[in-house]
């Protein structure tokens, strides 16, 4: 498997560390309530299909990435810097 880091280019997946669904980007407010925090901490969709997930280019540039991957075919549609995604969400 290969991932194309926006900063480094196409690299072997062994350079990356996987970190689950990208919901971790959407941190609730401290007073959002137990439901929101429970969802954020523990609930993941685990779809058989497209999913945004977090990968860390640990053996490369140390960028956190949001990878849009199909969980059954492993096709990768998009790789973005988590920083860019987080900034865009912050301004939305």
């Amino acid at each position, binding site marked *: 498997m290969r991932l194309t880091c926006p900063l480094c280019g*196409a690299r072997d997946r062994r350079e990356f560390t996987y970190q689950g669904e990208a919901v971790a980007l959407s941190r609730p407010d*401290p007073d959002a309530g137990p439901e929101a925090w429970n969802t*954020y901490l523990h609930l993941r969709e685990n779809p058989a299909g497209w999913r945004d997930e977090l990968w860390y280019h640990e053996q490369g540039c140390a960028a956190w990435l949001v990878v849009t991957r199909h969980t059954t*075919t492993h096709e990768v549609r998009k790789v973005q810097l988590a920083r860019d995604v*987080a*900034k865009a969400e912050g301004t939305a």
Partner: protein
Amino acid sequence: MRLSKGGLIERAKPLTFTFDGHRYQGYAGDTLASALLANGQRVMGRSFKYHRPRGPLTAGPEEPNALVTLGHGPTQEPNLRATTLELFDGLAARSQNRWPSLDFDLLAANDLLAPFLGAGFYYKTFMWPRAFWEKLYEPAIRRAAGLGALSGQANETRYEKAFAHCDLLIIGAGPAGLMAALEAGRAGADVILADEDALMGGRLNSETLSIDDTPAHAWAAHTVAELASMPNVRLMPRTTITGAYDHGTYSAVERVSMHLAAPNDAPREAFWRINAERAILATGALERPIAFANNDRPGIMLASALRSYVNRYAVVPGRAVAIFGNNDDAHRTAADLLDKGVHIAALIDSRPDATCTLPVRFIPGAQVAHATGRKSLEAITIATQSGTDRLQCDVLAVSGGWNPTLHLTSHMGARPRWDAKTAAFLPAPDAIPGLIPAGAVTGRFSTHAALEAGLTAARDALSVLGLKHAQTDLPTAEDAPYAITPLWAVPASGMGKGRAWLDFANDVTVKDVKLASSEGYKSVEHMKRYTTQGMAPDQGKNSNIGALAILADATGRSIPETGTTTYRAPYAPTTLAAMGAGGQGKGFAPERLTTSHAATLKAGAPTVEAGLWHRPSYFPRPGETHWRQSCDREVAMVRSHVGITDVSTLGKIDIKGRDTGAFLDFVYTNMFSTLKPGRVRYGLMLREDGHVLDDGTTACLAPGHYVMTTTTAAAGPVMRHLEFVAQALRPDLDVALTSVTEQWAQFAIAGPRSTDLLNTLLDDAVTDEGFPFMACGPVAIKGTPARLFRISFSGERAYELAVPARYGAALFDLLKARAEAMQGGAYGMEALNVLRIEKGLLTHAELHGRTTAFDLGMQGMMSKKKDFIGKTASERPGLMAPDRERLIGLRPTGAVKQLLAGAHLFDRDAEATRMNDQGYITSACFSPTLGHAIALGFLVRGPDRIGEEIRMVDHLRGVETTCEVVAPQFFDPDGGRARD
């Protein structure tokens, strides 16, 4: 018998080799199998279960019978296929799975027990009594049934792993692959052409075909020579592509030096990962046998294999050859043999309407029903419409049609589809993204079709790659149609005794498959597991389709209804040594060494592993015979004089930026934005779920510049966490993180005389006023800049001194010498651990991932003035409940004075059962300072139970005592020794 001329062997290069100790001669270009056949040795193995004598069925990598062992001792390598082992001078092979010898195998008695050893016999015969399975049945079965053995010794042979990248990977160098490589190579693409054979050309080297009016093998050689001259083409002979993976990744095994008499430094095999933009699958097809009674007798082989032996190796493995087939390849075989002057006893074609123009005895509409002869074929029984006929022959070539070698197309989950016209499975469309099947693997079996498909596939790939076509001309070649009438197994009725073999390698017969079906194993997956069909080293390459067809027939379904088998990687048997190349010893666990490592070893200190780091346990002095003596002395040394130890393994993270204070406030529970330059603060870090991630100190070196220390164990995870917070949660903050663990060597100088020692080194002396507890700042040692931190992990007045790593070794030597001159010295991990337990300081024994700040008695460090990672979750009621297991200290009160980490805690009078569990010990040691054992642990409502006597039980080590619950700070609880 070797033909006097012809073949692609090098007659000028005779080679000597041995098989089971007997000396033989062959030629360069031979395989072990072809050379043995040339010497009249046709039995090359004994079968898996019944120990029937077997000869080669094939001439290639799919061989199920002729498996041999090479080498002795650690280098012993079993289950190598004689049909692919290239002959070299001095090769010494041994047969397997026989006792005492290949010729006389006592275990062949199993063949007589066949009625008891059919499908599923493991499950039926040895069910009772249960205890017999482990002690009697399994060892006996293992001895009798099996393959070659490993030596059990560590193998020091060199293997290698390697990576390659290309525009176009072409898998297989037969006509389709060569044609594709020629076009793509000429077009300038970066091409890798891989073939499992040493000699590229595929079937062109085994057939008597012509391409552009030259012999096909000569065309192949000419084409390979042109490809070899292209700098953009990499030829990889002896390389099997074993797997297809995501995003154009392919695994491959190259036999780098297995074929060399003197490999010297070359690795035996290399495991490749090849990344290809595009790939062409030109793997061709494998011929399949037809099942009939005793079809496993030595001398019976595939027709294509016989043509390989005759045409490529110039070997005729007998005197009278019969040929049996259900398609035209049987006729091609007859023509080739006639051309070499070999006597053909008969050509038997199961198709009633078949015709033949060759001058041979031709029997259409007939089937070979039975074979006789044990160690060698002697005769066959032919069943025709009018009756049976017995025919003397010592070789029988069988052609049951061709199975496309489509295994790789299944590796990502696609299922092959059945094609009735060719009576074969064909690759599913788009099975592997970017992989184009071409040639015989798509069910187009003529040479013309292969060349044309190779050319077309190359052009398709070039278009995708954005390269111009090279306009290579399509050579002329035969384009014979493929006409086949499926025949899987000759009906057994009336043909006398004898089993019909499907899976030669695992001894599975037609009857076994039918038995599985009648016992309810009607799914192909169940049948496989029940009969073990397809589970031998050939992975069912010779038997999967036949077994499936017979199962379909037995269950009254069509083949597509019955299904197919899922081919999984690796395509061919692969040594673990190749796949794991570089992963043994230090390749498996690399060593991280501190700059003081050499001095540590020189001082005679044993080392202990901390993650990948190697750290000193203790520094023994003359007369000390037990580690405790050294440890106790080192603790006392630090408490009364001065000790030094290397703390470079702690994670060090350099943090810079305008918003560093706000960032640290967000990742630590306590405030850091208030920390002034020149000051250090202890911090606690939580995970977002409210549990403790790590602790450590962070020093403010200058405005906007901090250096954080993490525990040795958590250095990597903390760095990952901080980067996540900085990039994904707080991209608004200006902060940059750099790991500097390797860049700085850092030493603790601990003890009442630490300031005195330090001031013998520093260019400018430090004072308590200028450098109080928790101060930090730049210092210099003989002009070399260093960083000094007044922090303590021992409870004593202490410093940590950091220098650029290149000065580490020199500084350690200097510190050690100065300390020894002051009744001190170096101390190791044992003493370091005792010192911190005496002070109740924490490591990952306590911060084990399930403890909260509340559990550790650190709830006061959770700031109420700000948000931080883990704050909301840590306030969940369950994480603040008074009856949680919370940190306490323990000291023994009973007759047994020992406390053990891992032991569990119970109420004094309670039974030591799981239901009564009240907590556990995380760290324990003997305290030389206090003169008794001490321990840290977690106890239900712990801090409320100070003074209570409880029970400690270590069920594992059988130790039990009573102990008193005390505060976790055993020594100098108010911290005056470090501070004042």
